């Protein structure tokens, strides 16, 4: 139930409450954006029709490298 899916904001409706989110592979759906501050091009995490957070692209890109670094440097004493 806490499942949430990332998608890209491609359009914001004039009422500012809803946006069209593109989940890739041709799937686009309307999501409520009143819980976040977003602009077109942002990636959001959508749960039960509501965007609950804007995703951090930089962190996402660097996650694997960061984990590798943590594994190699942090020897547990």
């Amino acid at each position: 139930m806490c499942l949430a899916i990332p998608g890209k904001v491609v359009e914001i409706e004039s009422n500012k409450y809803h946006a069209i989110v593109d989940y890739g592979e041709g799937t686009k759906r309307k999501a409520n954006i009143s819980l976040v501050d977003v602009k077109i091009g942002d990636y959001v995490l959508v749960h039960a029709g509501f965007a609950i957070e804007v995703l951090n692209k930089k962190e996402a890109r660097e996650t694997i490298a960061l984990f590798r670094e943590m594994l190699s440097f942090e020897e547990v004493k």
Partner: protein
Amino acid sequence: MFSLSDKTLGQDIISKIKKEKIKAKFMHVCGTHQDTIVKHGLDSLLKKCGISISQGPGCPVCVTTPLEIEKMLLLARNGAIVTSFGDMINVPGEYKSLGDMKAEGYDVRTVYGIEDAVKIAYENPSKDVVFMGVGFETTAPATAATIISNPPKNFSIFCCHRTMPYALKAILDIGELKLDGLIEPGHVSTIIGIKPYEFISKDYGIPQVIAGFEPIDVLMGCWMLVKQIKQGKTFVENEYKRVVHQEGNIKAQKILNEVFEPCDMKWRGFPVIAKSGLKIKKKFECFDASVKFEDTLKDLENKELHEPEGCLCGELLRGLVSPFDCPLFGQACKPETPVGPCMVSVEGSCNIEYRYSEK
């Protein structure tokens, strides 16, 4: 971009954990974590490294009580249109589920989200439309945002929203399990951030890691816990930084605080847990189904309700047993003929175990 793929990293984490020669018991509280764990066989991999991991009360549908369900059945019987998420509709109260009522011709509707329920209310102005709002902090902000958007007057919410930190405290206070670490749910944490968990590490000396939902996230989460144990540290660490901000989603927190106040709440398998539920504030009580239909619902208040016979969901939700300990698992109880909520909900550990053992 947001999924983690790396062929060898998982294996590297496992060997790293193995080297520590540890024996530890971890709990997580999220159906999506359990799905990842069972789907990818992480439970048996981790067991080989000395780590056992179980799902606690992390399934909102499962922890909803028979009384809450009976109340919804009564409102449907009295002519309201009752709406909720698919899994919730199929959980039996004392004997019947909302789905059974629907088959009998009552107006029960499955919705994907609360906005669908509001739409139904606009389309049926002469009827009461009740949304059974289940879910943790991930889901509750949508309910709050809907309430402040001023939905039609024939719309109301039966609020079954629960919050995680005090349920974790309850597990630790009950003390049936000696836990060495907690994996916190990534999407609950997306909303609440790190702070609400801090008292747990401080008061109970337990390491915590907020983790994402890919196999690498869960393994990394376990390794971070192991590391804290080995270093004698106890704090809340964030593995899921690509999504969870330290302070959480402040905008969502503000809306939550505007609409809800904490309340004591019973969870299935638990006694009443202090401050573990959300109650709609008086200011918005015209949207609170428990106020709107108070007279109708009050007869149920003191009714003794039976849990399904032989079902171990209560013990499962406290992390004491596994689905395989239940004699009904896969026999009398299957997803097509569920006995308890943990087999109904796709987030319930019985359902998850059954689905993947089929394959």
